[in-house]
């Protein structure tokens, strides 16, 4: 964040007021944000402990953490987390590259947009789970079909985000590029891409979120490891604590990856003159 000239008081202010959406949280907002789940956990734990509720189908926090601890101790948790994270990472990268390229081409060229956009919008309307049987036939039951399914899920929000951002770049700023006789490539690199970057980050975060959703669908279609497998396994052997434990791990991983993404992109967005910057 030290791109900003240090001596300037306005810039110093934006560094102090880290944005809630990006760089992190102050101690007070961390407290406020965790208050509700902790409260719910305590109430539920007490209710089961004092016999006010039956904890069999909705296990109390203590049993969930015991299950988590057990999984962590045996090294199983790490194995599942690794498998799922690797799938999300690969699918996210593939979907992002494809979505960015397609969005940029459709955004830049009206002809490409007229040819390809209706088809892509049609495909976007297909519930992605509907692809599962087809992908299994095409790519087999193992990793390839899973990663492709995740990539498809990531592709659409990024395609749509990039396309929309390209179309809404201020004509007046593009004209500055034309007035300085930029080539098409330079116009894209020096005007269009920086201009869409804030919207691009939002699209990436949306895509990453969908990546985490699709990995579960992918792992439901037959996996021997991964957090999705833990979910299915928990159902089959009747261990709700394992299911909730896997859900918690999903929540943590999803939030963590989103936070890392925001953190990585925040230094490039200090120039923004936006509502969040002023808060």
């Amino acid at each position: 964040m030290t791109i900003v000239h240090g001596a300037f008081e306005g810039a110093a202010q934006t560094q102090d007021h880290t944005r809630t959406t990006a760089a992190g949280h102050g101690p007070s907002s961390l407290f406020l944000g965790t208050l509700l789940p902790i409260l719910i956990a305590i109430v539920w734990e007490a209710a089961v402990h004092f016999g006010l509720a039956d904890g069999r189908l909705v296990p109390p926090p203590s049993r969930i953490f015991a299950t988590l601890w057990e999984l962590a101790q045996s090294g199983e948790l790490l194995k599942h987390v690794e498998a799922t994270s690797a799938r999300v990472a690969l699918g996210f990268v593939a979907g992002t590259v494809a979505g960015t390229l397609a969005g940029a081409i459709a955004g830049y060229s009206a002809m490409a947009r007229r040819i390809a956009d209706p088809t892509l919008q049609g495909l976007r309307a297909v519930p992605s789970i509907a692809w599962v049987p087809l992908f299994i036939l095409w790519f087999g039951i193992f990793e390839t079909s899973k990663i492709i399914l995740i990539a498809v899920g990531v592709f659409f929000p990024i395609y749509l985000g990039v396309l929309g951002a390209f179309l809404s770049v201020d004509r007046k700023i593009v004209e500055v590029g034309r007035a300085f006789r930029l080539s098409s490539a330079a116009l894209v690199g020096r005007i269009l891409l920086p201009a869409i970057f804030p919207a691009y980050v939002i699209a990436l975060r949306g895509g990453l979120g969908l990546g985490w959703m699709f990995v579960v669908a992918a792992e439901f279609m037959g996996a021997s490891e991964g957090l999705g497998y833990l979910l299915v396994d928990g159902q089959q052997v009747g261990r709700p604590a394992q299911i909730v434990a896997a859900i918690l791990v999903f929540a943590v991983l999803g939030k963590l990856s989103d936070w890392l993404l925001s953190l990585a992109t925040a230094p490039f967005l200090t120039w923004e003159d936006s509502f969040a910057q002023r808060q």
Partner: protein
Amino acid sequence: MLEIDGISKRYPNGTVALRGVSLNVDAGEIVAVVGGSGCGKSTLLRLLSGLDHASEGGVRVDGATISAPHPAVGIVFQEPRLLPWLTVEKNVAFGIKDLPRRERKARVAAALERVGLASYARRWPRELSGGQGQRVAIARALVARPSVLLLDEPFSALDAFTRAELQDHLLELWADTRPTLVLVTHDIEEAVVLATRIVVMQPNPGRIAATFDVSLERPRDRLSPAFDDAKRRVLLALDHTLSAKRKPVVIEPPQHRPATQGLGDGNGFYAAQRPAGAA
């Protein structure tokens, strides 16, 4: 050096924005183009900049036909149009990316110094006031050392004090290297302060109604009778272009003159100066 040869501009919807405009501008002249809204003055400037193409006729700068933005022609828009993701100095350097680094740095520093914003080099555009932003935009246009600088109502969005300050500033910059300036404005006072020649345009279709040479000595005293006289002559010509469209308003002198000298006094004189046909 700047030759405008019978240019017309017809938009695809059939509107004729300009018809048969010819004008020769000598090197180092300051030409102010004034006119009511819709008289095609901004269209004229866009044709001179090469951002738009004339339907008929052509524009030449030092013998070279302008069909696209040309390195010898710089432009300053109505708004600063700075790129928000670049610092002030990088914005100024935007159009001279191809120069060697040292030359570029030296030119940017000199230009910022010249517009009085040397200490703002590392700031973001959002941290600038409207007047400062427009000064940066002028610096950005001037670092490329154009022989013709086009200005499209550059100070119209600023308050009266800032506007007067920037007009003086522009004259100082002009005195340095004496580029040819073509300035579109709807502010007659601005035209008289700056211009060596004033071109009055009239609408439907846009064409030149009258031209005036302004031979007032510099620095021009905005309060001198000669300045007032020049202003009034331009105003009369402008009024003439509009009188075809609307009924003239005749301001009656007050029946009982107030004891103190009021601004209303001028109105009686102004009404008396109207062309014979108008009243």
